């Protein structure tokens, strides 16, 4: 029999820590701090709207780019929250989560051999998606001493004449780092001068603490070279609804729509109706959840401080990324032992790129009570290591 497989897909490593994930998901009695999704239920008015749409029999495809009403609400929301005016008719495509938008954006923009600058540590799916789109991922190792931000110096050092796209994964999973207006100002000129495009994954844009999220697309000259990716999963606790969107200049969005149209057809209809309610009536819910996350963030930082675990203060998403370098273990060894000895699951930093080595990701999408119990175990564990 001939080889049934595509060389390209075979060449992509299954996530290095898949094995670790499998062990954790088998351990039913473990306390997890490893989850990348909110612990809140989707606010009731959103669920109710989904149920109502089913009762009304709204069980058909929508138009490829998404419900007109939803695209208009998305446009109004982005303008109101982030000063991003998009034309709902041609510049917004509703996708199956932010994930599909990431995949489609790379596929729409990359030619074989084009280089994509990928700041790491960052979410696990950018790199394989770049490879699938025949691009060449070029990791940029972000540093704790820079607050895991992308600096002008790091950016300049990575650009070659093949560089086409810069991925901007902020607020960042797993570090929790954000890029403020001032931080972005530093790099915008470089991006324009070097004629780069940006794929800005802003899925955590509602979860920043102390300052509002600023989109890189809101800078003069950036909107026409940026695809903004956002969605409902994190801000409205809607992960299972699988709903996100991509926005950008029409010339790129037309091609993204083509991919979406042939690969997906349209995002789930029920989810789209529910999302209209999220955008129309969900501001208070977002605020409530943000407040709770912030309290947990404060709580974790205080506890780390008390146990002497060094951790840079994150101002976004719902993760902290403490350094475990003092223990002389790899992040995977640390996480495995913590799991075996104390039954607490965290994610090894190496999962998010080689520059994540020496760190672990701890999620605070958990109640204070759960965090308290888990952190007592973490403290016990590191005291024994010391």
């Amino acid at each position, binding site marked *: 029999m001939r080889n049934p497989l595509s060389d390209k897909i075979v060449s992509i490593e299954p996530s290095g820590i898949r094995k670790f994930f499998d062990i954790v*998901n088998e*351990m039913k009695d*473990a306390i*997890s701090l*490893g*989850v*990348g999704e909110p612990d809140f239920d989707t606010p009731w008015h959103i669920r109710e709207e989904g149920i109502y749409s089913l009762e009304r029999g709204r069980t058909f495809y929508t138009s490829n780019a998404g419900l007109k009403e939803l695209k208009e609400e998305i446009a109004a929301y982005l303008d109101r929250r982030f000063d991003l005016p998009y034309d709902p008719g041609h510049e917004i495509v509703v996708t199956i989560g932010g994930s599909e938008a990431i995949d489609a954006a790379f596929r729409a923009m990359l030619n074989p051999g084009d280089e994509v600058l990928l700041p790491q540590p960052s979410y696990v799916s950018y790199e394989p998606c770049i490879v699938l789109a025949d691009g060449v991922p070029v990791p940029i190792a972000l540093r704790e001493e820079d607050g895991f931000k992308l600096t002008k110096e790091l950016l300049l050092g990575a650009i070659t004449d093949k560089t086409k796209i810069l991925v901007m994964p902020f607020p960042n999973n797993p570090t929790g780092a954000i890029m403020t207006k001032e931080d972005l100002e530093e790099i915008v000129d470089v991006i324009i001068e070097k004629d780069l495009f940006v794929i800005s994954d802003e899925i955590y844009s509602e979860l920043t603490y102390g300052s509002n999220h600023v989109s890189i697309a809101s800078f003069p000259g950036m909107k026409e070279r940026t695809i903004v990716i956002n969605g409902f999963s994190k801000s409205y606790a809607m992960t299972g609804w699988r709903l996100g969107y991509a926005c950008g200049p029409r010339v790129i969005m037309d091609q993204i729509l083509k991919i979406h149209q042939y690969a997906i057809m349209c995002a789930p209809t029920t989810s789209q109706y529910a999302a209209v309610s999220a955008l129309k009536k969900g501001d208070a819910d977002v605020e409530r959840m943000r407040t709770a996350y912030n309290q947990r963030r*404060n709580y974790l930082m205080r506890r780390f401080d008390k146990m002497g675990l060094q951790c840079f203060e994150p101002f976004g998403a719902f993760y902290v990324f403490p350094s475990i370098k003092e223990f002389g273990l790899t992040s995977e060894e640390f996480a495995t032992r913590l799991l075996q000895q104390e039954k607490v*699951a965290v994610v090894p930093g190496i999962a998010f790129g080689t520059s994540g080595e020496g760190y672990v990701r701890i999620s605070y999408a958990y109640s*204070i009570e759960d965090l308290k119990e888990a952190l007592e175990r973490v403290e016990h564990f590191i005291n024994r290591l010391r």
Partner: protein
Amino acid sequence: MKKQILDAIQKNGRYSTEDLAAMLATDEETIKKEIKEMEDANVICGYPTLINWDQTDCELVTALIEVKVTPQRNMGFNKVAERIYRFEEVESVYLMSGGFDLTVVIQGKSMKEVARFVSEKLSTLESVNSTSTYFVLKKYKEHGLIMTDEKHESERMLITP
């Protein structure tokens, strides 16, 4: 800070001052001082426990009573309300707008006991003109907490990227 403390303890009165200090990124002394001030000012009036008596063996009935009263000269409704809320068995008393004046919530061991309260204690007050009593059949939610929810295991996967 006071508002933040109240928001945090409104649904969970069991946070320690140490936890509250960590959550609100301040020190324990500040929390203690703020809470003391709010207790003294009757902003925080107590720390009762929300109990779903339906889940216990204890028989307990709750009734909601609409009361029409004659306000007393110079005292308005407050004096009448006080004469009602001083009774041990009275859970809550609210002054209402609309078709009646006071809502009185009472808890008793049986319907008979509630009936006795209404007929012997409440309706005999001279400023009470009329009462309508409604018995609660089931409590679904109180204090912002759903009481009927079966505790379900979280269906989130233990670890996701």
